[in-house]
C-alpha cells in the first residue's frame, strides 16, 4: 500500500492485521457481547413494561420520561455510576459496568417500539379475537405480540446499532471492546489499529442489522408485502 501519512509511516500496515488476528477476533467477539446483551436484556424489560404501558395508559408518559432521562445522561457518566458495583476492567463481572448502562439506554428506543407495536394491532383484529373467545392473556401472546413483532424488531435494530457504537466509549474506563484499539493507536501515534477498529465496528453494525432484518423476514413472512403496499 502506498498511501503514506505525513511522517512517511503508511496509513495501514497490512501485516499488523495478520499478526494480531487472534486479538482482533477476541476483541470483536467481546465487543459484540457488550453491545448485544444489553439489547437482549432491554427486550426482556421493555416487553412487559410496554404491555403495562398499553394496558394502563397513565403509566406510559412517566415510563417514557424516565427512559429518556437515562438516554440523556452521557454514557461515560452512566458507566462510572456502575463502577462501585461491578468494578473496572474487561471481562467477568466488570462487563456489567458497561452492559447495564447500555441496557438502560436501549429502553428509550425499545419501550416506545413495544408500545407502538402493540398499538399497531388493528382494532377489528383485536375485537375479532375477543369475540372468538380469546382470553386477555391468550390474545396477548397469540395475537397482539406476534403482530407487534415487526415494530419491536425495528426498534431492536436502532438500539443495536447505537449500542455497538457506544461500547467504544467504555474504553475510557478500561472496557471498550474494539474501542481498545483506538486508545492503543492514539497513544502510539499509530493509525492502523484506529482504522481497523473503525472498520470492524461498522462491519459489526451492518452485520447485526442484517441478522435482525433476516430474523424479521423469517419470523414475519406475513408482513413482507403488506409493508411495501403501504
Amino acid at each position, binding site marked *: 500500500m502506498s498511501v503514506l501519512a505525513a511522517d512517511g509511516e503508511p496509513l495501514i500496515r497490512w501485516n499488523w492485521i495478520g499478526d494480531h488476528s487472534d486479538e482482533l477476533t477476541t476483541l470483536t467477539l467481546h465487543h459484540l457481547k457488550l453491545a448485544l446483551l444489553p439489547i437482549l436484556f432491554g427486550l426482556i424489560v421493555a416487553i412487559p413494561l410496554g404491555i403495562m404501558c398499553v394496558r394502563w395508559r397513565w403509566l406510559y408518559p412517566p415510563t417514557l420520561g424516565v427512559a429518556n432521562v437515562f438516554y440523556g445522561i452521557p454514557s461515560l457518566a452512566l458507566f462510572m455510576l456502575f463502577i462501585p458495583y461491578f468494578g473496572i476492567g474487561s471481562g467477568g463481572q466488570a462487563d456489567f459496568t458497561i452492559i447495564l448502562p447500555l441496557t438502560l439506554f436501549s429502553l428509550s428506543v425499545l419501550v416506545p417500539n413495544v408500545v407502538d407495536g402493540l398499538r399497531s394491532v388493528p382494532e377489528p*383484529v383485536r*375485537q*375479532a379475537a375477543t*369475540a372468538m*373467545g380469546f382470553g386477555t392473556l391468550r390474545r396477548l401472546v397469540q*395475537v397482539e405480540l406476534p403482530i407487534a413483532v415487526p415494530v419491536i424488531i425495528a426498534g431492536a435494530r436502532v438500539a443495536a446499532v447505537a449500542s455497538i457504537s457506544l461500547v467504544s466509549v467504555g474504553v475510557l474506563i478500561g472496557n471498550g471492546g474494539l474501542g481498545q484499539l483506538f486508545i492503543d493507536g492514539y497513544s502510539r501515534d499509530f493509525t492502523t489499529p484506529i482504522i481497523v477498529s473503525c472498520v470492524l465496528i461498522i462491519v459489526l453494525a451492518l452485520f447485526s442489522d442484517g441478522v435482525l432484518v433476516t430474523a424479521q423476514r423469517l419470523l414475519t413472512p406475513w408482513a413482507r408485502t403488506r409493508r411495501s403496499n403501504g
Partner: protein
Amino acid sequence: MIRFDGVTKRYPDGTVAVDDLTLEIPSGQITVFVGPSGCGKTTSLRMINRMIEPTAGTISIDGEDIRKKDASDLRRGIGYVIQHAGLFPHRTIIDNIATVPYLLGWDKKKARATALELMERVGLDTKMAKRYPFQLSGGQQQRVGVARALAADPPVMLMDEPFSAVDPIVRNSLQDEFLRLQSEVRKTIAFVTHDIDEAVKLGHRIAVFQVGGVLAQHATPDELLTNPAEGFVTEFLGGEKGLKRLRFNRELDATEEPAQPEIEDDVEAAER
C-alpha cells in the same frame, strides 16, 4: 332462539344506546337489525356475545341466560363476522379459519381438515390455504371471515355489516352465496346492516331500530313493505317512492332466484 327481555344499555355519561329492547330471534333464521347510525343495532348485537354488557334486562339463548356461562366459553359457541373481516394478519388462511377449533382444543389435523372443507364451502380455492390475508382481495377475506365463524359449527352467528366494505358487485354475489350457504347450515343469525336493500334481501325477519335504541318495527320483509309503521319506519324505507322500489326489487328477486328457504318451526326438532 335468542331472546332479548327488557334489555337496556346506558353508558355512564347518560347516553342510552339501547332502550328497553324485547325481541325474539327465531332459530335457524336470519334476523336483520337495520337502522341509521346511532340506533343501537351494533350494541344490541354485541350484547349477545357479551362484548358489551347490558345495564338492565336479560338475554338468553335457547332459554339459558347468557350470563351463566364464562364469556370466553360463550363466545366460542357463537360465530362472529365483522365488516373488515378482522382476520389475523400473522396467520395463514387455513389457520385463521381453524382459530376457534384450536381454541376448543381440537386435534390440529381435524381442525385443518375442517378448515379446508369450509374453504370449499364458502367458494375459496383451497390453493389459498397457505397464503396470508394480505394476499387476498377484500371479497376473499370476507369469505374467510365467514368460514372462520362457521369453523366450530356454532348454532348462532353474529354478523356486523359483513358485506358493506366490498364493492356492490362483489357484495351481491357474497349475499347470494351467503343465502345459499344458510339454506344448508340453517344457523340462528343476527345480522346488522344500515342498508335496507340488504335487510330486505337477506332477512327472514327485520328489526328496524330508531336513533336512541328504540325498536321501531319488527316484521317479515313482506309485512314491512306492505305495512310499514307510520313515521320513522316509512321515512327510513324511503317514503312511497322507496317502498315502491323495494317492493319491485323483491318481486324481481323472487322470480329470478329460488325463494329463500321457508323455515318451519320444527326444523330444530328435526335436526336433533
